[in-house]
C-alpha cells in the first residue's frame, strides 16, 4: 500500500512551519524529494539593495537561533574586504558570544531530542537551564536573542569585571547541570536504545553528500571550520574537534554533548585571557571591489557567506548557505529505505532550523496512491510503537561516557 505522509505545517510540536510530505510503500520510504520555500523571504536579493551596515542587521535575522553565526560570518567577510584588522579584545568578546550561542543552541537541541524520544521531563529541564545562558547573553548584549554585538572592526559592547565574574559563576552551574543530564541519560536505557542505530549515515555517504557540522562529525569525519580555517581567535584557543564513529543519532547526540563541554572550556579560557585594549577599530564606509568567501562553524555546522563588492557601500552579491540546507541531502539519504517510525528522530538529529535554510521541506512522491495524512508527532508515536517490542538490555546500550 502506498500512502502519502504529510507533516505539519502548523503543529503544536513544531514551532516552525515545516511540512514534510512523502509517499511510502508500507512502512518503508521509497522516494523522497525536497520542495522548499514556505519560509523563503528573499534575503539575498534584499541584501543587494542595502548598505553593509544595514546588512549587518539583516544577516542577523536570517535565523533566530544561530543569529550570531550569520552575523559573524558576514562581518568577517566584510572585514577581509575592507582589509581591516579587528581589535584583539573585540575578537575575544566575539568568540565568547559565539561559544555562548553554541551552548544555548545545543541545550535547546538536547531538549528537543528528549522530546522526540518521548522524554518530556528532559525537555523541560534543559530549557530551564537554557535560561541561564540566555541571562548571560542578556547581560552582555542587552537582548535575549538577536545580540547585535558585531560591528566592522570589533564588537559594540565591552565586558566589565562584574559580568566576567557572573559568567564564570554561571559556567560552574551549567557544567554541573550538563553532567547531571549525562547521568540522567546514561541511566535511562530506553533513551539510549531509541537513539542508537537510527538514521545511519556512513562516512562515505556523509562526505559525498556534503554534510556539515555534528551530522558529519558523528560519521567520523573531523571537519571543523574552527580548526581547518581558523577565524577570530580560534587559532589561539586549545580545544578538540569532537567526533563519534557510530554514524547514528546517538553519535550526533554524543558529539553535541562533548562540544558543550568543550565550549565551557573555551569560554573559561577566553574570560581568563581577555586582553586589554579597545574593542573596535574604525571601519570605512565603502568597500573596494573584491570578493570573499567566508566560512564559520555555526552550532549546526559550516556556515558559508560569499560576498562580492563593487566599490560602493552596498554589496554586489551576498550568497548565504545555512548549515541546515547542506544537511538536507544527507537527511534524505538517511530517510530513504528507512522506516517512517524513525523520521522524527532523524530529522531532529540534524537540528533543523527551517528559517535558517529559509525554506520548507516537502517530500513527496509523484505517483498517486491511497493517501493518508500523518503529522510529525504521529510519526513520533509510531516510532514509539515500533520500539516498544525491542528489549533494551542495559549492557548492550551503554551510554558512551
Amino acid at each position, binding site marked *: 500500500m502506498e500512502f502519502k505522509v504529510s507533516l505539519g505545517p502548523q503543529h*503544536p*510540536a513544531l514551532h516552525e512551519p515545516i511540512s514534510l510530505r512523502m509517499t511510502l510503500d508500507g512502512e518503508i520510504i521509497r522516494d523522497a524529494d525536497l520542495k522548499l520555500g514556505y519560509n523563503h523571504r528573499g534575503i539575498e536579493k534584499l541584501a543587494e539593495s542595502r548598505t553593509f551596515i544595514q546588512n549587518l542587521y539583516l544577516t542577523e535575522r536570517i535565523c533566530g537561533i544561530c543569529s550570531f553565526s550569520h552575523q559573524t560570518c558576514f562581518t568577517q567577510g566584510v572585514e577581509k574586504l575592507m582589509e581591516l584588522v579587528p581589535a584583539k579584545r573585540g575578537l575575544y568578546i566575539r568568540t565568547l558570544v559565539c561559544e555562548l550561542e553554541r551552548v544555548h543552541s545545543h541545550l535547546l537541541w538536547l531538549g528537543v531530542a528528549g522530546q522526540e524520544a518521548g522524554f518530556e*521531563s528532559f525537555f523541560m529541564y534543559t530549557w530551564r537551564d537554557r535560561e541561564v545562558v540566555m541571562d548571560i547573553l542578556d547581560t552582555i548584549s542587552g537582548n535575549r536573542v538577536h545580540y547585535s554585538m558585531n560591528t566592522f572592526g570589533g564588537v559594540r559592547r565591552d565586558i566589565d569585571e562584574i559580568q566576567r565574574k557572573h559568567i564564570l559563576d554561571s559556567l560552574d552551574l551549567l557544567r554541573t547541570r550538563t553532567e547531571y543530564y549525562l547521568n540522567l541519560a546514561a541511566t535511562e536505557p530506553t533513551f539510549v536504545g531509541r537513539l542508537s542505530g537510527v538514521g545511519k549515515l556512513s562516512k562515505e555517504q556523509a562526505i559525498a553528500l556534503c554534510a556539515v557540522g555534528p551530522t558529519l562529525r558523528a560519521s567520523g569525519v573531523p571537519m571543523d571550520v574552527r580548526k581547518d580555517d581558523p577565524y577570530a581567535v580560534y587559532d589561539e584557543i586549545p580545544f578538540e574537534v569532537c567526533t563519534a564513529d557510530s554514524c547514528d543519532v546517538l553519535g550526533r547526540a554524543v558529539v553535541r554533548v562533548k562540544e558543550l563541554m568543550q565550549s565551557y572550556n573555551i569560554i573559561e579560557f577566553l574570560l581568563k585571557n581577555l586582553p586589554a585594549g579597545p574593542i573596535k577599530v574604525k571601519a570605512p564606509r565603502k568597500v573596494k571591489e573584491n570578493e570573499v568567501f567566508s566560512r564559520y562553524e555555526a552550532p549546526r555546522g559550516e556556515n558559508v557567506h560569499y560576498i562580492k563588492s563593487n566599490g560602493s557601500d552596498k554589496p554586489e552579491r551576498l550568497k548565504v548557505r545555512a548549515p541546515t540546507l547542506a544537511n538536507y541531502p544527507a537527511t534524505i539519504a538517511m530517510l530513504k529505505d528507512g522506516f517512517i517510525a524513525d523520521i522524527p528522530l532523524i530529522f531532529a538529529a540534524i537540528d533543523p532550523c527551517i528559517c535558517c535554510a529559509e525554506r520548507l521541506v516537502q517530500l513527496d512522491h509523484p505517483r498517486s496512491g491511497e493517501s493518508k495524512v500523518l*503529522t510529525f*508527532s*504521529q510519526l513520533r508515536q509510531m516510532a514509539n*510503537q515500533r520500539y516498544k517490542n525491542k528489549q533494551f538490555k542495559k549492557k548492550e546500550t551503554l551510554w558512551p561516557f
Partner: protein
Amino acid sequence: MAILKPILYILVYPGLLFLLLYSTFCEWFDRKLYARMQNRIGPLHTGRSGILQPIADIVKLCAKEDIVPEKADKRMFSALPVFALAIVCTAALYLPVWHYGSASSFNSFPGDLIVVAYLLTLPTLIFFLAGWHSTNFFSTIGGVRVLTMLFGYEIPLLLALLSPAVLAGSWRILEIATFFQKQPLLLLVNLIGFFVALVALQAKLERVPFDIPHAETEIVGGQFTEYSGKKLAFFRLLGDIEMVVGSGLIAAVFLGGFPGGLLPGLAWFIVKTLFVIFLLAAMRAATSRIRIDQMINFSWRWLAPLAVLQLFIVIIIKGMVS
C-alpha cells in the same frame, strides 16, 4: 413534599447546580496544585486567586461560534456531548452525599455500585464515538486510543471496587459506607485497592500520565480536535464532573463515606474528594506521559494482579472476621 425532594435532589444538591459549581472549583484546585508542583503559579487573576478561571473558560466557550465540520455526522456530532454530560450527572445522583442509614432514599438501591461504574464507562464510549464521527484523522486516532485504553483500566477498576463491596457484603454504596463507618479499621485492609482505583481513575479521566488520547504534542486535540464552542464546553465540564464523581465514588467506597446530616455530610464530601483530587494532581505532576503500549502493559502486569491480590486479602480477612 414527597415530589419536592427528588426535584431538589436532581436540580440542586447533589444534582446539577451543585455539581456544576463544585466541579469547576475542583478543576481550579487541580490546576492550581499542578502549577504549584511545577514551580509555576497557575491561574491568578480571575476572581480571588483565579478561582473563577474554569467558569470563565466555560462561559467563554459557550459564547463562541459553534462549528460543525462539513464531513462530520451532524446529528451524532451534536448529540454526543449532551448525552455524555447527562450520563455523568446521573451517576452523581447515586453518591450518598448527605445521609445514610435511612434506606428510603429514592436513588439508592442494592447494586448501585455496579450502575455507577457502568455509567462512568459510558463517557469513554462516547469519546470514542465523538472522535469517530468527527472524521478528522487526529480525532479518529484519539478515539481509537480511548477504546484501547479502556481495556487497560476498566477491569482493574472494577476489581478494586469489588473488594470493599465483598468485605461489606453489599453492592450498595450506601451500605458499604455505613459498614466502614462502623468499623473504620477495616479501611486499612483496602489500601492496595485504593491505590489501584486511584491509578485507574487517573486513566479514566485521561490525565497525565494517561492523557494519551488527546496528547497535545502528538495528535493535537485527540477526539476533541474538531469540537469547538458549546460542545467543547460540554466536554470540558464533563471531564470535571467525571473527576468529582470518580473521586466521590472512591471516597465513598474506600474512605468511609460522608457521615452526618446535610451540612456535615457536605463538609465530609468536599474534604474527602479534595483529598483524592490532591493525590490525582500529585500523580499528574510527578509523571510524564507514557505510551499506549506501556499503559496497557502496566495495567495488566501490575494493576490487575494487584487488584486480584487485594480481593484475596479481603476474602481471607472476611473469613477471619465473621
